[in-house]
């Protein structure tokens, strides 16, 4: 044990002699681990949170497709869909988008009076009641973009070219920003008059299926019944989000790949092209009686010190960046051109498997790149090494 401690002490002294070079490597290595761990933590948390929340999404949605585009669906479709065995409730939905020229933001307008059962901690104010016209419930993002509070009016330009004014009855709390931030909920009748939609057509249809294992069969039957429809199952919605946040693709990772490659070249260059001084040091150590195994251990400790410090600091930095500072470094890239962007707080989901992969992808290659050339130098005759 004493011998190992002494070799570690020697390794630390050796690293300290070239402190500026080694501190530089630790800084770059830490930044690489921090960026990579930030991407992994962010995408995994997004994915898990989306999955947990969207489990409440409708089991089956039926869209009408015309000329390859999503089209409004007639109410008559619901009658036939209701007759399909295994189908429960069939509820037509009304929703669409509104581009607000004053803020430059896109809003999602929902026409429904289906309230929220437990709205106490969700909503400031009240939800719209059945038959109540000229009122709306909005998301926090719209409230902030329009500087609007409960009781204020929001004018929306309708399909007839006139402004339809809606009194704000409730505002969703910041807790639900990730799902309600850009929502404007109005009465279905108001929705139809705002967008000039006829009475018997809807955006799409939500179908309740009694037996979850029958969803695909019900979807296939509806598709056979109405070939111009596109059924979207909850499984497909979840699968979309599963692949959506896949960390393997994306701008951040592509940009980061260049930095990672630069570090690999730096580490490889540092490790393989041992300078004359380092080779001489190995030769002297061999000449004064160090075994090859001792030199290997020395180089192991050198690699371990740099990689362990960098890995741990980078991992801590990544966690703090994502879960305490809300991914502030990535936010311009994440936000894109969205004017209404939620200020949400991600749940700190950690995937130990990803952390283990990160460890093996960063620490092990660096240590291997440090040890292998030293082994080559240490098995050579000390006289040859010292003479260069």
């Amino acid at each position: 044990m004493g011998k190992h401690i002494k070799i570690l002490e020697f390794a630390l002294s050796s690293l300290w002699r070239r402190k500026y070079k080694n501190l530089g490597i630790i800084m770059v290595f830490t930044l690489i681990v921090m960026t990579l761990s930030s991407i992994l933590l962010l995408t995994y948390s997004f994915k898990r949170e989306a999955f947990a929340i969207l489990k409440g999404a409708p089991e089956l949605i039926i869209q009408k497709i015309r000329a390859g585009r999503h089209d409004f669906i007639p109410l008559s479709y619901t009658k036939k869909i209701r007759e399909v065995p295994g189908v429960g409730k069939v509820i037509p939905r009304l929703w669409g988008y509104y581009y607000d020229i004053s803020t430059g933001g896109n809003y999602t307008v929902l026409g429904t009076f289906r309230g929220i059962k437990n709205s106490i901690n969700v909503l400031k104010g009240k939800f719209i009641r059945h038959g109540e016209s000229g009122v709306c419930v909005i998301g926090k993002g719209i409230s902030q973009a329009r500087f609007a509070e409960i009781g204020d009016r929001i004018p929306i330009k309708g399909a007839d070219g006139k402004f339809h004014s809606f009194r704000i009855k409730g505002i969703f709390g910041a807790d639900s920003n990730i799902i309600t931030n850009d929502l404007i909920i109005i009465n279905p009748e108001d929705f139809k008059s705002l967008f000039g939609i006829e009475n018997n057509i809807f955006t799409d249809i939500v179908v309740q299926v009694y037996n979850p294992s029958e969803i695909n069969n019900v979807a296939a039957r509806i598709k056979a019944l109405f070939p111009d429809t596109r059924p979207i199952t909850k499984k497909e919605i979840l699968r979309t989000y599963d692949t959506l946040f896949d960390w393997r693709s994306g701008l951040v990772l592509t940009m980061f790949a260049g930095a990672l490659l630069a570090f690999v070249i730096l580490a490889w260059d540092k490790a393989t092209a041992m300078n004359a001084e380092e080779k001489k040091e190995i030769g002297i150590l061999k000449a004064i009686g160090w075994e090859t195994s001792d030199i290997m251990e020395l180089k192991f400790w050198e690699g371990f010190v740099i990689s362990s410090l960098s890995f741990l600091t980078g991992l801590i930095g990544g966690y703090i960046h994502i879960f305490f500072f809300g991914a502030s470094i990535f936010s311009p890239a994440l936000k894109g051109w969205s004017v209404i962007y939620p200020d949400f707080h991600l749940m700190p989901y950690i995937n130990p498997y990803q952390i283990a992969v990160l460890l093996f992808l960063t620490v092990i290659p660096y240590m291997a790149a440090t040890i292998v050339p030293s082994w080559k130098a240490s098995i050579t005759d000390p006289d040859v090494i010292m003479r260069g």
Partner: protein
Amino acid sequence: MKYKVFIGFVLLETLVVISLFMHSMVSLRNSMPEIKKKKDIVNELMLTDLSIWTEARYTRNPSQADWFAPFQDYPSSIEHFPAGSIIAPGNIRGPAKSGSDRSTTNLHKEE
């Protein structure tokens, strides 16, 4: 004596990492009612997507978007919006027993 400083520093950092894991577990446990609340809103308002990228229809509601929306075609397809560069193409086509379906099932198990 340098080794004492090094071992002390590594132990300290390891303790910080362990405490962050603990923070994660405690935060997740405490946030379960909040997650349930959001799930209930999604269920009662019959929502299908997260309100994150509002810049285009297919980034606001990726699960409801047309099959030929740019990022849903293939990874290197020409993309108009920055969000399309951040999020991967949606593999929503094909039968349910695809490769990505397996990972969805894994997430089910992790819940």
